[in-house]
């Protein structure tokens, strides 16, 4: 297929062909990543800017490594959160990056829609590394990659996503990606964190974890932001963990060899027990490796082909 995208902002507007092409490319990238010499000349002379408005060591490192393996020069700009209101506006920052002739910008920002906002201004490509509660396309791609690596074609299979989906860009991007590939998706959590309007994503909603586990091929736990308790969204970690924490005992209810995913970082013994997190079922470290492969694939697809700079 012909890749024509300048940016990767959300799974929502991607075709199945595009998703398949990314996954195919990532497979090649993973093979390279497993080599003793992890360095390619492919993107020699291309510059990739990591623009991170939210602290996220793991995602930023994953993108940096992906760019470096492909031979690109990667620069990270960590912007303190406070500067959103005080300092230079994203608009002005975008103009500055434009002037620096970057080829690709990776953005992580606390505002939903900020990645598209940036992409609309820049000639350079943009990859959304998480915008507010809206989208985290690379996470969803690495998740489906990991699922298919383990379980084969996911069409017709069942994925249960547990936790704070209301505030989760991971859950949203996974909902789009999985459903496009024919997966049956259920969001489960307390009604305050899985409110009725989440049906807008086309998924099934549930509040009783035990009742939706039977038949689940994949169970994905989301990170619970502990400050949600202060906003009154759930009464205590104790009760949350009793109702929605993944334990070995509870996971028997799937009645199959399900795999467990978590986007990290984990709150151990809140949304996932130690035992589950460290079990063979949990592919959490594999997700991290695959994350680099997916990001390599996207960086390659966005700037590996025809050059943005007209000679």
């Amino acid at each position, binding site marked *: 297929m012909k890749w024509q995208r300048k940016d990767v902002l959300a799974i929502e507007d991607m075709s199945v062909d595009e998703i398949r092409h990314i996954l195919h490319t990532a497979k090649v990238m993973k093979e390279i990543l497993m080599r003793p010499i992890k360095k390619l000349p492919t993107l020699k002379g291309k510059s990739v800017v990591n623009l991170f408005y939210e602290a996220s060591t793991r995602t930023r490192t994953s993108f940096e490594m992906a760019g470096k393996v492909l031979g690109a020069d990667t620069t990270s700009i960590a912007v303190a959160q406070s500067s959103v209101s005080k300092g230079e506006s994203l608009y002005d920052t975008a103009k500055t990056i434009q002037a620096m002739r970057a080829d690709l910008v990776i953005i992580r920002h606390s505002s939903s829609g900020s990645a598209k*906002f940036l992409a609309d201004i820049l000639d350079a490509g943009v990859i959304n590394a998480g915008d507010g509660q809206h989208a985290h396309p690379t996470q969803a791609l690495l998740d489906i990659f990991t699922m298919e690596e383990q379980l084969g074609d996911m069409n017709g299979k069942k994925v249960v996503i547990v936790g704070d989906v209301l505030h989760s860009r991971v859950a949203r991007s996974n909902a789009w990606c999985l459903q496009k590939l024919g997966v049956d998706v259920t969001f489960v959590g307390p009604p305050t964190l899985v409110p009725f309007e989440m049906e807008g994503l086309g998924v099934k909603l549930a509040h009783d974890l035990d009742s939706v586990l039977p038949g689940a091929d994949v169970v994905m736990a989301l990170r619970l932001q502990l400050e949600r308790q202060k906003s009154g969204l759930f009464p205590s970690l104790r009760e949350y963990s009793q109702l929605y924490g993944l334990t070995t005992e509870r996971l028997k209810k799937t009645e199959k060899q399900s795999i467990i995913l978590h986007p990290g970082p984990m709150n151990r013994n809140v949304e996932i027990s130690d035992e589950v997190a460290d079990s063979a079922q949990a592919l959490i470290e594999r997700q991290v490796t695959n994350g680099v492969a997916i990001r390599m694939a996207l960086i390659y697809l966005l700037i590996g082909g025809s050059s943005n700079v007209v000679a």
Partner: protein
Amino acid sequence: MWWLKDVWVIDPSQTLSAPRHVLIKGGQVLEMFASMTEEEVLTIAQGESVETINGEGKFLFPGLIDVHTHLREPGQEEKEDILSGSRAAVRGGFTTILAMANTKPVIDNRALIEFVRMQGERAGYAHVLPIGTVTKGMQGGELVEMADMKAGGAAAFSDDGKNIQNAEVMRLALEYAKITGLPIISHCEDKDLAGEGQMRRGMVSARMGLKGIPASAESVIVARDLLLAEETGGKLHLAHISTTESVDLIRQAKARGVNITAEVNPHHLIFCDEEMGITDTALKVNPPLGSQKDRESLIEGLRDGTLDMIATDHAPHTMAEKSRPFAEAPFGIASLETALSAIWQHLVVPGRLSFERVIEAWSVSPAKRFGLPGGSLKPGAIADMVLFDPDFSEVIDSTQLVSKARNTPFLGKNLQGFPVMVWVEGQLVQKNRTVLGK
């Protein structure tokens, strides 16, 4: 003297919608006839020169009165000021505008009321009438000197932009304002329910991952204020109604005979949340755009009189402020220059609303409720009038807008049906979309 020949006059104050010849003299409507010859006009003119306008194919109606505008002066003149705002008003067909009190400082005493009124007079375009706050510093606590402010020219009282959260303060305001006869305008929004919300809570906000404002954030306060108005007999006006539930509550209260009026904004009649994109900050507005169902309820409410008025809630902002990610951009749409055309094109032309009802809701009803001049073309009435050409089409171009603000969802879009001549007190202030100099 002006002679408007063969123009279709819409004047709901005299249940008139028919072709007429209209004579304007000395800042007033002189007479209106079904037919007229030049000799007859010259006889009436008694030697005064006569400007003749062929009004065929055009509408003439009383100038629009907008009870809800933000002119930003004093304090935020980078967004708008009284001169630019009142020029935008006449360009859009408004001859009287009420200026909201949430400026910097807020308009909470007579000196500031008089300042706004004087600035409006100095500008000399639309009549600019100040709205005072309800509470000192708009803090939601102590009441302002309402009687003194009325003496200085206040047209109403409102803490618009902020809701009066304390129900007892609202009750007292409705009671005390009786000595002025002026309405209290309520900005119905429960602060806690609205929270940090950016758009209406629903499937669209869920998809976009933007914090939602539930419909109840508005209707809870609508219910409260209707009950308080009923209990006190105070004069209440509800600003920018946007939900089905609010419309139902108002309809029920009116059936009980409660002394209330309510307004709806053009954008809530035209857009809904499903049409929004994640970077469409031009459509970020408070109260937020509702669902399709809400939009239908609002149109129905306006048709059946549950909603008395249309008001723009003209909320100018700078491009820099609106050129931000959605959650960081301010709420508001600058709409004085486009609102009437948008309503014409989106609701009148498709037959959803009659033009007569639009003029009634945007001119006659506000004049009546707020006790303002205008709102009628009866002989002897002030000659605040609009000549509207339904065939005039224009691409909304930032270089043509006279407001300082560009935050309109119609930027770059074509609209058809515009005011092509506007008179304030018989003085022509806008001709062929150009605001005339002074």
